[in-house]
């Protein structure tokens, strides 16, 4: 039943998360067995045993970053957890998990939503876009490039949500001023307080300069 297309839109090379996971697994193995090679650990980690699928799981089919996905999941799985835990698209972040911070913002059929407040099973046939589907390290979306140029972050935890919101805002009714942008970005909280730079990045893209 399970037909997973892993990481659509994600880069294929080693990233920080893969390296950390491998190092972490190797560290545990080294503690327990002393002389296991990291190569073996990596091979084992890549093929975990598949647990049986419980009867009350539901079939979901959708498109994530233009790739078809179908899977049986627990109906309680939010879209956010589906993307992170099942699709391993960890660019979308879990902040408050109650629709208050905006870190989990993704696009559903082109509209920005809080993925934490939505069950994945209710998105049958829909088109989901995450930060991984927006651009790639060598081909950034213009909004990603503008965030880099204007330093629209410090710790970076809210950034993918900010960028997904900002990209959606480009197609929404929004007045010309910074205050207009701030109002429509108020659903994305930045604890580092990079708001001025975020607004500058968005305004640059809106003005096409």
């Amino acid at each position, binding site marked *: 039943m399970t037909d997973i297309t892993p990481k659509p839109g994600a880069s294929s090379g080693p990233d920080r998360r893969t390296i950390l996971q491998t190092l972490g697994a190797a560290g545990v193995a080294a503690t327990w067995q002393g002389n296991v090679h990291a190569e073996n650990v990596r091979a084992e980690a890549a093929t975990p045993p598949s647990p049986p699928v419980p009867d009350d799981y539901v079939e979901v089919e959708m498109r994530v970053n233009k790739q078809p996905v179908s899977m049986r999941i*627990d109906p309680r799985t939010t879209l956010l957890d589906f993307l992170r835990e099942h699709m391993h698209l960890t660019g979308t972040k879990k902040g408050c998990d109650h629709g208050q911070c905006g870190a989990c913002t993704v696009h559903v059929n082109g509209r*920005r939503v809080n993925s934490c407040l939505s069950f994945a099973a209710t998105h049958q046939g829909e088109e989901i876009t995450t930060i991984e589907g927006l651009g790639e390290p060598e081909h950034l979306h213009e909004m990603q490039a503008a965030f880099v140029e204007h330093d629209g972050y410090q710790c970076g935890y809210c950034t993918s949500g900010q960028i997904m919101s900002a990209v959606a805002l480009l197609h929404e*009714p929004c007045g010309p001023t910074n205050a207009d942008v701030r109002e429509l970005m108020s659903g994305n909280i930045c604890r580092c307080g990079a708001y001025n730079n975020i607004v500058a990045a968005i305004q640059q893209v809106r003005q096409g300069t």
Partner: protein
Amino acid sequence: MDVFQIQNPKDIDAAVSGGATANTAQQGANVRFLAGGTTLVDLMKLNVERPQKLIDINRLPLDKIEALPDGGLRIGATVRNSDLANDARVQRDYPVLSQALLSGASAQLRNMATTGGNLLQRTRCVYFRDQDMPCNKREPGSGCAAIGGFNRNLAILGTSDQCIATNPSDMNVALMALDATIHILGPEGRRAVPIADFFLLPGSTPDKENVLQPGDLITHVTLPALPTGAKSLYLKLRDRASYEFALASAAIVMVREGNAIGEVRFAMGGVGTRPWRVKDAEDHLRGARMDKAAFQAAAELFLKDAKPQSGSGFKIELAKRCLVHSLQSASQLA
């Protein structure tokens, strides 16, 4: 969160018959309709709502905004708040509704939240949302921790000794001032309920918030045409500039007749256990001169029965100023 089933009804009748199996349409319902989910999913994560079955109504044909022959507007139950707020007819004919919607929540939440869901939005009282605290709305008979507790954001009108929770919606306040009608399809057929009769006062049963019975599905809301020359607006006062619930808000509809006030209707949010309207205050303004003294007198009448709680005494004056200021602003438009 408890495990639940998700049902995808093939049509509206199937949704109603699925909903009719519920033990109640109020707090503690074992079957819930699911629309935008912005309230329900949040409360399910907190175990405040624990449905065993969700009936997903998002694909039912309830998502249209249509002009009515009499000049009014028909708004489907699953029309998203953002689509309603940005609809050209709403912006032209009912600016109070557009402004109220855009002052609520965030852009993401407005893309999800629906007309029907917003009508049924649950209170933001922190004790209702916290399983470890007594709350008569969540668990009848357990007591009210808000009375004497943290209550600066709670109600001063329509309260009881059982509950002082505020209706948190902005949209509902605008719909009150617009004399909206809520259309319901239930197991017994269709019925139309004026919004003024839709919400219940908490009294001794704060777990019952509205007139809905098991299987009752809100299908749409209708707005009557406003009188010629009517102006409307929404003013919201809150702790933050954006993305915050109201401490006090006002929805105004006003028509000028010469130098005096003609038809006038207004409702307030953030201060009542339901969106609040006071007939005496409106009657006082009809035919009155458009001046601050008249608006001040109307505000006194509106807040006459206000009962402050331990942390909400400031809201009486805040609400009066909110109402006077918004009536003045409306009179300058009219």
